């Protein structure tokens, strides 16, 4: 007799646990409001990434097309993957002194691991992370970016 009770207990206990599980899934089936899926390409307009999101390295330019980079190459030295290349040129000033100036700031997105060291070490805060995350391109060459805009120059006040 005990064996039969044991058997039935096992049976109904098992069925009960199964029903508990079905209750959970059933709840979500009848509560479509719980769905949290984001409809990505549609919500592009309203989608806002967090301020600190590490999308890609970028160099902010002000309205006069001026940036803050002094071409000191600290970011290049600190980058663990060699994804930054700072090319500088020597310019002669009015007073005859030679001065190093940024020529091209090459950023290889394909090699970047988003560790954020370059931005942390930059003494001028010339580079920041921008929030763009749609990096997919058809050509790998497009991932090599020049961060300073053509014709841009160094912002006055950070010069010495």
């Amino acid at each position: 007799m005990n064996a039969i009770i044991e058997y039935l207990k096992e049976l109904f206990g098992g069925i009960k646990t199964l029903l508990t599980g079905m209750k959970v899934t059933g709840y979500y089936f009848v509560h479509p409001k719980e769905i949290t899926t984001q409809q990505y390409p549609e919500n592009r307009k309203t989608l806002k990434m967090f301020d600190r999101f590490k999308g890609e390295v970028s160099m902010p330019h002000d309205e006069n097309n001026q940036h803050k980079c002094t071409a000191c190459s600290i970011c290049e030295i600190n980058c663990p993957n060699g994804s930054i290349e700072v090319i500088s040129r020597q310019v002669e000033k009015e007073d005859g002194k030679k001065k190093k100036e940024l020529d091209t700031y090459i950023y290889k997105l394909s090699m970047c691991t988003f560790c954020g060291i370059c931005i942390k070490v930059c003494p001028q805060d010339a580079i920041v992370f921008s929030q763009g995350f749609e990096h997919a391109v058809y050509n790998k060459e497009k991932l090599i970016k020049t961060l300073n805009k053509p014709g841009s120059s160094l912002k006055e006040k950070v010069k010495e």
Partner: protein
Amino acid sequence: MEEFITNSKGKQEEEYIVNMGPQHPSTHGVLRLKISLKGETVERIEPHCGYIHRGIEKMCERLTYQQIIHLTDRMDYLSAHINNEAVCLLVEDALQIEVPERVKYIRTILDELTRLASHQLWWCAFGMDLGALTTYFYGLRDREHILDIFEETTGARLLQSFNVPGGFMNDIHPNFIKRVKDFIVYFRKKLPEYDELLTGNVIMKERTNDIGILSLEDAISYGVTGPSGRGSGFACDVRKHHPYSAYDKVEFREVLYTKGDSFHRYKARVEEMWESMKIIEQLIDNIPEGDYAVKMKPIIKLPEGEYYQRVEAARGEFGVYVLSTGEKYPYRIKFRSPNFSNLSAINKIAAGFKIADLVAIGGSLDLVIPDIDR
């Protein structure tokens, strides 16, 4: 494939060898398990790793200590923050820098959030290994909340690289505390659902109870740590036994189970989620004011000597061994990854069980393959 074994009657039998992986849904990555089968029963398992070996230790020999941190993310990507912290703690200890209390508190909170996120993902994947596909989406849904917290404060969802020697890259986001609190309230409601859906389920119990038993002695001998080891009763929680950061200031229980089967490994992890929430609750209101980082020299050189730092990653004990010659690069760095040791025990655990059990055992060990291969 042409391997023969001789059975008791002296007759030669062909072994039925199945390669599970490198592409297989339940190895969670590029691990290859060479399994000798007899019917459905697993006779012997031979793990073949190295499919995602990147030579991180070699790469680190050419990187400064700040730069090493971002590579530690990429070993156990599910406990990225904890791995970062290990290197930072090692450097701080070696240079005898006392980091601000604020940093310690926040590190501990982020550690536990990482652990929670990792265990949530494990729970998803474990359910899937057993064939309950719905668990995956529930777990990921809840994990999303933690990832949002990470994203807001650290700027990345998975590979944060938020720690630097001496503190953090940045201070926590103003919303951080509120978000964490909201999450705890939310997750305290959702976690019982996990139990209802999977833990209590009779099929799940049948599938895991008394399956893949790892005795305490074997757990210690194989160095199976983390919840997998604690499921066997191995008191190996580094947070408890060698406290770092703010773990000495919080009350929490080291979750210990005794049987060492898949179910107890499972329970240990689920319990740990509760404990993690407890730890976060104790700290979140008391984050002291202060700096988020100590000013460090731009070039860090560790004094000559050997250093070792242990932390409790989500899957077990994570260790960093550094042999320094006083240069800015480490002469030799070794990462003791928990999964590597946990994997080594798989033959011991799973031999003699069915092939379906092997999947359950693999799930309960919660292996992360890049952490094995490094």
